[in-house]
Each structure stands twice: as structure tokens, then as C-alpha cells.
């Protein structure tokens, strides 16, 4: 009974809130309009996945509404999966567009070059200027105009079970070949359950897989004087793909055609010895609702080691934020972005294991093993090729298909050649 009442109460409250906010936005439309939009409005912010901690969301909403009386800020959580498709449709409609969007740093070029975001060059200095993560700013700059600013960075690093490593008599690997051997040995030391992973690597996970290609000196695509071509069939790339294939077939128990979403599920089922995941996954593992605090206590971390013993070149992960060019509330959206890049907000992100958008705040990550792994992983991180048609390549899922076929034990050279052939017409837009 009580539960029912609470539910009904919550439903009523939600209804009332919706009605109120509807009234609010109605009255706004009558306000004096300037070029940057009305003085008050409801600002819609799209954040993706569970990456941004709740504390930061609450702070942003409260602070924004305090500083801009009459305006409200609504955070709408989107899924990472299918984000580009969703933004393609939402950003092009003046009435439907969110005002502020978070977008994966490798996805940003798709939209910056299409004119979907507002020019932020004028505000760049106020937002942090040279203190901002330069690689992210460069990635979002087209012909000298910055269309997005970094939100946070966070390349993936390796989580491992200290207890299983000890039981198998293994130690933390310091080079790529040691890493692969450790992963295989860990799998052999744990024959039960059958789907145990020495290194958990689902077949579609090219974002982790590409690190092996880069470490071997290969690349996804190369630029020969303005003409992009697939580079997967180069001998170096093939060597890297073969390393990935060894991990897929001898070390991983993950589905050969699965995706990398929800690594916490197999981890908490005790089926994972090592896995490569973004830092914020630790938060999911520590949470009794989504994870398994008991097992999480036994986690150690390290940055994936490269052949030379330095951190391997992993995919530079992280997000940008941008203002939709079609948003009618440009001024207010800029204020929201300023808050998201403020030291206060970025401090909350740093305390939750996300590399802050400003270099001066990196020390806030602390100096525990997690912070060290985060910093080490980012130190040698790389971006996907800056080809104009890269989004098309990702959209057609060539790389998911390639890695999944490699995971199933296919002929690497043949598959790589096929993927190159498929990418070549797409790469140049």
C-alpha cells in the first residue's frame, strides 16, 4: 500500500513539475529577444551514458538556475550507442534541438565540419584558453574556428583481478608481449567457467582492438597528399591484428560477436581476469546496485603497456561539449558551457576519475593507482583518422565487422584487405 502511495505521489509531483515547466517556457517566449536568444529559457543539456557523476549534474542545475533566475536547466541523458544518428536528426531541427550537447571527441568532426555547432572561438579564452586539452580543441577546430571544447578525457586502461593474478603466479606485465602472454596464461589458469577471459575482448570492440594495430606501427587509414586510403593491409597493421586475434582466440571468453557495453556484467560474474575499460566503470563496480563491491576491492589497474615498455597508443577517449547552431538560446547556452568548464565543476569530474578538461586541474585526480593509470594511458593516446568520411566508416560498422570476423578466427590478411576495400570509397567523403 505504502509503495503504491509513494509511487502515486511521485507521479503527481512529476506531472506538476512538467506542467510548471511548461508554463515557464510559455511565458518566456514573450520576453525581450536579443540576438543571443531570450533572457530566460529552459536550457536542455544532453549528456551521454552514466559517465557524468550525479553530483556534477546536481551542481550544474542548481548553480545555473541560481545565477540565471527565471531560467531552468534540464539534463537529458542519451545513450552513447547510436548517438551520432540521434544528433544528426535532432541538431538539424530548430524546434527540437537541445541547446548544449556532449559528443565523443572522435565523433565531433562529423558535426563541426557540417556546421552543426556554434562558433566558440570568441569564448575560447574565457573558457580556459591554452589551459584546455589541446588535442581536443584541435580535433574540434575547422579552418581556425573552434566549434567545441573539451569536456573530459579518459582513455581506457586495464582493470585486473589481483587475487587471480596472484593465484596464477603472474605479475603485472610491462611490455605488450608480456601482456598477451599474461592474458593467455590467466585464461589457462582458470578453466572454469568455460567463458572465463584472461583478457575480456568482445568481437565488436575495435576501439580497444585498434591499440594493438597502433602499437605494432600500423594504422587504420593514412593520408597520402589529401587522398585517404585504408591501411589495415600494411604488414604492421596485420601484425597488430594478429596480436588481437591471439587475444580473441586464446585469452578472451567474451562473445565473438558481442559489443563492449556493460563490462561490469561478466566482471561481476567472476568471468574476467583483465579487461580494458574507461575509468568511470570503477564507479559502476563499486555501486552495490550496478556492480559488485566485494570483487571491486580486488581490482588493480595499469595502463596497457606497449612493445617498447611505454604505455601503448590507445584510443584517446573523452568528450567535447558544443552548442547547437540551431539553438535559439545561444547566450544562455554559453553560460551553461562556462559552468561546465568552471574549476568547481571540473573538480567534481576529476574526483570521479575523469581527466579534467584543463591541464591545470590534472593534479586533482590524486596519485593513487587509478590516477596514475589514467595519466599514463592518456600520455600516448591517439585519435581516429581525421579523414572527412570517417563518420561514414563508423556508420557502416566496417570495423565492428572486421574485428568480429578476426575474433572468429578468420584469415587476417584477407579480412584486412576486404575492410580496406570497403573503407576506401568512404574515407574521402
Amino acid at each position: 500500500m505504502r509503495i503504491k502511495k509513494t509511487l502515486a505521489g511521485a507521479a503527481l509531483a512529476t506531472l506538476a513539475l512538467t506542467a510548471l515547466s511548461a508554463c515557464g517556457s510559455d511565458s518566456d517566449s514573450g520576453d525581450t529577444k536579443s540576438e543571443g536568444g531570450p533572457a530566460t529559457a529552459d536550457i536542455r543539456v544532453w549528456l551521454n551514458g552514466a559517465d557524468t557523476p550525479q553530483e556534477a549534474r546536481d551542481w550544474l542545475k542548481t548553480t545555473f538556475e541560481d545565477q540565471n533566475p527565471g531560467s531552468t536547466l534540464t539534463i537529458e541523458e542519451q545513450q552513447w550507442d547510436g548517438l551520432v544518428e540521434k544528433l544528426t536528426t535532432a541538431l538539424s531541427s530548430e524546434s527540437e534541438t537541445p541547446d548544449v550537447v556532449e559528443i565523443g571527441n572522435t565523433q565531433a568532426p562529423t558535426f563541426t565540419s557540417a556546421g552543426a555547432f556554434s562558433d566558440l572561438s570568441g569564448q575560447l579564452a574565457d573558457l580556459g584558453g591554452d589551459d584546455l586539452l589541446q588535442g581536443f580543441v584541435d580535433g574540434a577546430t575547422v579552418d581556425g574556428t573552434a566549434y567545441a571544447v573539451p569536456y573530459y578525457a579518459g582513455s581506457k586502461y586495464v582493470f585486473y583481478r589481483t587475487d587471480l593474478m596472484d593465484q596464477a603466479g603472474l605479475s603485472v606485465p610491462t611490455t605488450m608481449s608480456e601482456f598477451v602472454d599474461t592474458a593467455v596464461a590467466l585464461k589457462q589458469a582458470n578453466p572454469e567457467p568455460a567463458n572465463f577471459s584472461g583478457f575480456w575482448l568482445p568481437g565488436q570492440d575495435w576501439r580497444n582492438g585498434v591499440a594493438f594495430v597502433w602499437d605494432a606501427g600500423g594504422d587504420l587509414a593514412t593520408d597520402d597528399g589529401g587522398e585517404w586510403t585504408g591501411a589495415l593491409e600494411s604488414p604492421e597493421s596485420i601484425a597488430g591484428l594478429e596480436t588481437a586475434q591471439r587475444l580473441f582466440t586464446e585469452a578472451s571468453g567474451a562473445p565473438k560477436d558481442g559489443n563492449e557495453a556493460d563490462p561490469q556484467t561478466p566482471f561481476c560474474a567472476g568471468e574476467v581476469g583483465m579487461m580494458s575499460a574507461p575509468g568511470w566503470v570503477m564507479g559502476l563496480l563499486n555501486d552495490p546496485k550496478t556492480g559488485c563491491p566485494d570483487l571491486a576491492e580486488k581490482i588493480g589497474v595499469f595502463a596497457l603497456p606497449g612493445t617498447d615498455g611505454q604505455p601503448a597508443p590507445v584510443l584517446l577517449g573523452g568528450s567535447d561539449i558544443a552548442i547547437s547552431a540551431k539553438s535559439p538560446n545561444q547566450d544562455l547556452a554559453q553560460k551553461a558551457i562556462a559552468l561546465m568548464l568552471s574549476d568547481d565543476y571540473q573538480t567534481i569530474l576529476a574526483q570521479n576519475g575523469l581527466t579534467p578538461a584543463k591541464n591545470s586541474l590534472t593534479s586533482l585526480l590524486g596519485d593513487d593507482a587509478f590516477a596514475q593509470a589514467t595519466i599514463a594511458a592518456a600520455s600516448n593516446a591517439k585519435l581516429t583518422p581525421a579523414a572527412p568520411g570517417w563518420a561514414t566508416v563508423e556508420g557502416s560498422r566496417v570495423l565492428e565487422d572486421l574485428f568480429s570476423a578476426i575474433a572468429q578466427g578468420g584469415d587476417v590478411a584477407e579480412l584486412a584487405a576486404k575492410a580496406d576495400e570497403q573503407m576506401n570509397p568512404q574515407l574521402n567523403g
Partner: protein
Amino acid sequence: MSTTIGPPRPRRTPLPYGLLVPALAALLVALGYPLAREVVLAFQDFGLAQQFGNPPEWVGLANFRELLRDPYLWTVALRSLVFCLVNAVVTLAIGVGLALLMQHMAKPVRILLQSGMLLAWAMPVVATLTVWQWLFDTQYGVINWLLTEAGIDYAGHSWLLDPLSFFFVATVIVVWMSVPFVAFTVYAALTQVSEDLLEAAEIDGAGSAQRLRAVVLPSIRPVLLVVGLLQVIWDLRVFTQIFVLQQAGGTTRDTNLLGTYIYRLGIGGGDFGMASAVAIFMLVLTVLLTAPYIWAMLRQEGED
């Protein structure tokens, strides 16, 4: 030409035309505009930049030329056709079978079956797919677990890896979702079959199979035609089921049907011109595929 002979004509009033306006407007907005836009897009080079305001470039038939020369389109089209026909036939067979069965069921059993089918029919697609995906999950799925418990080693078996197995799972889901509609519609039609005719046939010594073939099926033929037509159209443009399964596993390139191929070209890859061209190709295919049905339906109406 003189038209003075014959009964006096009713006075012409504009009212009937006025009454047509709302329906016509709705059709124009909901069907006409997107269709016109699609045709226009198919002759343009329309990418993401155009989506955000750049003027598009007219390219004439270039999109179609490139498309029709691409063997992949023909592979996808053939795959879609086979998938569509298999699904439509299986759905119709099971649906009609259930409808016939329902006639002979005790009322409580029939109501139970009907409620179950109604639930399946009313369930939101994405919720349904989430459940099906979990059932067929490689590592934690109930189906693998059940089969393994039953002594067949399906532990860790990926149902989506092999394209044939992928389409088997997709077929199960699509058929499961469309059978209720067929069963209900055909059952409704069966209740209209004349009892007198059946009785007369029985007296003349027709067995149950003969009665079904010679009396029941011809009486419900118009309904079967409409249901069959709808199934073919729906199964040719199937999208959600394939799209969600592709995210879960399988090889995208080997499992694309026309619907997902258009999506990957347009929304996924930002090439709206090309995607529209494929969409028009698909429209032509649908018309060709359904023409015999429509022809048969028109002829039937002519006979009546």
C-alpha cells in the same frame, strides 16, 4: 453530345469536395511531403553539411547509376526478398492455422489464447526485442541454458554469428509479433462463413478437408489477400528487429536488409541522397511485389 436524356441530376454542391479536404491534407502532409522530398533527395548530393544548411548539388541520375552497379545492393535486395517471403508465408500459415484451431476451442481456452496473443501484439517493439535478445544471449541466455540442461551443448553458442542463424532468430521474432494480427483477422473472417453452405456441403458428403478447401477458404479469400498483402509489405520493410539484433551481435554487412541498409547509408553515414535512391528502389520493389495481389483484389471486387 447531348446529355439531356435520363433522370434529372442532383444539383452539384461543393460539399463533398469540402469533406475530402481534411483527409487529403493529412495524406499530403504525412505521405506526400516525405515522398516528394525523398524523390528530390535521390537526385541530389545531400550529405551532413546540406542537412545543416549548405545548398545541395543536383547530380541527376548519378546516385542511381552508382547504386545499380554496386553488387552489394542486389545482394541486400535478394536477401530482403527471401526474408520477406519466408516470413510472410510462415506468419500466414501459423496465423490461419491458429484461427482454424480457435473455432474448435472451448471458450475459456480460446479466451486464454486470445489474451496471450493480444499481449504479444500490444507489447512495445523495443521492450519485446530486449527480452528476445536476453533469451538468445550468448552467455547468459535462457535458451542456451535450457538446451545445455537438456544435454545438448549450447553453452556460449552465439545465435547471431552465422547469418542464417541470425535470420532464424529474426524470423522467430518477426513471426511471433505478426501472427496475432493474422490470427485475429482470419478468425473474424471465419465467423462470417455461411453455416448453411457448410451444412449443405456436409450433407453432400464433403469431408472436412474438402469443406476447408472448397467452402471456407474461398469465402475468406478477400481477407486472406489483404492480410497477405500487408504481411509482404511489412516484412519487406522490416527494420527494428534487424537493427537491434545487429547491435547485439552478428556481422552487419552480412545481415543488412533494405531497411537497415538505407539507415546505415543515410542516418548512419550521412549520405542522404544515396539513401533516398535506395529507398526509391525499395518502393519500386514493393510495388512490383504487391502488384499481383492488388490485381487479384481488384479483380475480386470487379466480380462482386
